[in-house]
C-alpha cells in the first residue's frame, strides 16, 4: 500500500509570548517543529507499515528549504521517502493555492491509496488544506479522524464530533485528517536518525510540477491579508487585597455593586 502524509513545519506557537510593553511578539528562541496533528498523521501511516510489510510511506511538504529538517525528522521516525515542494513561486499562498500545489505533486506521484494529513496547523489553524487537496484530486475525505482501521481497500474510521463521533466506511483512495486523539506519535530512534541523514530528499520546484504558475503562490490566492495586528491587551483590573475572608467578601460586594450577581 502507498501512503502519503502531508506535513507542515510550523513555529512552536505555544512558546510565543507577547512583549507586555511593546505588544509585539517575542520570537527569540522559538523553534520550528513538525506540526503536532501532522505527527499523528505520520504515526498512523507508520502503524500501517508496522503491520503490512509492503507499505511505503512518503511524506510531502510545501515550504522553504529549511523544511528539510522536519522531513529528516519524519524519516527518522520511519518514513521511507520525503518530498519537499520549494520555490519562491509557491510563497504567500493561501489554502486555495497551497492545496493546488500539493495536489499537483500528488498527481505527479500518482500511486497512492491513503493520504493522511493533520487536522490543522498550529500557525494558521485553518483546517482547510486537507479537504481542498481531496477536492482537487476528486477523492473522498474524512476529517477529524480519531480512530482508524483498514481492511483491503475498505477504511473504517471514527470521525470526531463535538458531542460524540460517527463511524464512517469509505473505499480507498481517500484523504483523512488526524486529530491528536488518534494515537501517540513515536519518537525518532537512533538507527532512524542515522539513516535519515543518508537519504536524499526529493525537491520539486514549479518546473517539476504539472501546474501553471498562475495557479500557485500569492497571486493565485483568492484571499489576501488586508492588515495584521497584535490584539490589544485588556489591561489589569482591580486587585482585591486583605485576608482570604476579606477578599471573598469584597469580591461579592464588587459583583453586587455592578449588578453582576
Amino acid at each position: 500500500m502507498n501512503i502519503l502524509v502531508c506535513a507542515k513545519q510550523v513555529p512552536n506557537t505555544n512558546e510565543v509570548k507577547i512583549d507586555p510593553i511593546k505588544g509585539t511578539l517575542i520570537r527569540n528562541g522559538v523553534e520550528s517543529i513538525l506540526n503536532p496533528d501532522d505527527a499523528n498523521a505520520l504515526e498512523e501511516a507508520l502503524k500501517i507499515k508496522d503491520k503490512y510489510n509492503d507499505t511505503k510511506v512518503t511524506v510531502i511538504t510545501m515550504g522553504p528549504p529549511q523544511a528539510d529538517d522536519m522531513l529528516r525528522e519524519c524519516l527518522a521516525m520511519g518514513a521511507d521517502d520525503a518530498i519537499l515542494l520549494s520555490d519562491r513561486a509557491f510563497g504567500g499562498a493561501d489554502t486555495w493555492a497551497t492545496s493546488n500545489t500539493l495536489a499537483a505533486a500528488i498527481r505527479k506521484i500518482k500511486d497512492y491509496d491513503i493520504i493522511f494529513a493533520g487536522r490543522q496547523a498550529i500557525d494558521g489553524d485553518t483546517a482547510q488544506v486537507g479537504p481542498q487537496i481531496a477536492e482537487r484530486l476528486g477523492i473522498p475525505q474524512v476529517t477529524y479522524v480519531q480512530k482508524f482501521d483498514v481492511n483491503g481497500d475498505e477504511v473504517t474510521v471514527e470521525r470526531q464530533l463535538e458531542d460524540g463521533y460517527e463511524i464512517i466506511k469509505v473505499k480507498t483512495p481517500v484523504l483523512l485528517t488526524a486529530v491528536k486523539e488518534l494515537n501517540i506519535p513515536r519518537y525518532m530512534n537512533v538507527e532512524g536518525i542515522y539513516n535519515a541523514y543518508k537519504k536524499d530528499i526529493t525537491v520539486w520546484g514549479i518546473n517539476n510540477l504539472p501546474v501553471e504558475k498562475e495557479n500557485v503562490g500569492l497571486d493565485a490566492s483568492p484571499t489576501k491579508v488586508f492588515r495584521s495586528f497584535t490584539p490589544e491587551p485588556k489591561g489589569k483590573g482591580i486587585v482585591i487585597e486583605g485576608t482570604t475572608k476579606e477578599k471573598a467578601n469584597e469580591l461579592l460586594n464588587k459583583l453586587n455593586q455592578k449588578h453582576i450577581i
Partner: protein
Amino acid sequence: MAVKIISEKCKGCGLCIKACPFEAINLLNKLAIINEKCTSCGACINSCKFSAIVAEEKKVVKKDLSKYKNVWVFAEQRQGVISPVVIELLGEGKKLANEIGVELCAVLLGKDVESNAKELICYGADKVYVADSDLLENYTTDGYTKVLSDAIKEIKPEVVLYGATHIGRDLAPRIAARVNTGLTADCTKLEIDPEDKKIKQTRPAFGGNLMATIVCPNHRPQMSTVRSGVMEKAVRNEHNKGEIIKLDVKLSQNDIFTKVVEIIKTKKEMVSLTDAEIIVSGGRGLGCEEGFKLIKEFAQKLGGEVGSSRAAVDAGWIEHSHQVGQTGTTVKPKIYIACGISGAIQHLAGMQSSDTIIAINKNANAPIFNVADYCIVGDLYDVIPAIMEAFDNFNK
C-alpha cells in the same frame, strides 16, 4: 498584495526581522531579504522606519462580480435540530445584509426540514432555500458539497457564512475549492467596508498572537467560517415574514462515497460552554485531578459550567470538551472565573471577551491578571471555599 523591500532605502537595521511573525526576513550583506516563508501579512511594513518596505498591488483583471447578491447562512442541522451557531450567524448575517443593502438567506439541507425552515424565518431569514432529500438526512461531505455548490453556482450569493463546527470546517473548504473562491477560517469579526461594500474578515492566527484581517477582492462568494459563541444571537420574532424556496436536488447515491454507519453520542457530560452564563475554569494550579471536584462544586453553587485550560486537559484531569481557548471552545459568559490558570495566550484568546473576568492565582505576575477585572492573589484551595461561604451568606 506582495511585500517588497526597496533595497536602496534599507539600512539593514533589522527591525522588520523582529516584527515578522513567520521568520520570513533575513539579513544578507546588511540588506533585508524576504524569503519563501513570507505570507504577505504586512506586519513588517509599519515596523520599517525608512519606508523601505512596501506592499505591491499586482494588476489583476477585474471580473464581473455584480451578479452575486445576498448574504447566505448555511443552516447546519443535526438530527433535525438547527445548530445553535446558526442563530448567531443569522444575527450577524442580518447586520451585514442591512449594511450592504441586500437580503439575508438561509440554506437548509436535510430530510423533512420544513418546520426548521419556518424557524429560520422567525430568526430573521428573508428567504430560506431548502434542499430536502433522503440522501441529505445525515451530513456527508460529498452530498452536502454537491448540493450546496450547485446552489451557489446557480443562485450566486455574495457572502456565505458557515459555523466553524466539525461539519462547517469539513464542508466549507471543499466547497471553496469546487466553486473556486476564497475561504477565511474561524472568523471572530466581520465588517462591511463602507466604500466598496466588501466584507472584511478578522481572525486570530499564529496561536492567537496575531490578528489578521482578510479580504477576498476578486472572487465570489466571499466565504467565512465563524466560531460559535462569538457573534450575537438573532432575536426570535414569530411575526417575521419570509419565503421558502425549494431547491432542485440533483443527487444520487453514487455521488456519495462515504457511508455513515452510525452516529454515536458519547455519554460524557454535554458541556455547553458556549451558552453558559457563568464558567468556572481550572488549570494546572489545581495540582491534581481531584481539584476539579472543588471547581465543580463552585460552578454548581453559582449555576455555571466547568471549563479548563489546555494544561489540565493535557494532564488528563478533565475531558477535552471542557477546554477553553484557541484549540478548545471560545466563550463569552457573563462571568468567567479562572482558578489556577496562568493565562497562556491560547487560553486568553478563547475567553478574554467575557463580560467579567475573575482570576484566582498564587502568582501575582500570572498573565491571566492582565485580562482580569478582579484579581485575587492567593491559594485557590483557600480562596474558593471562602468565596462559596461568602456567597451563601450573601444569599441569606
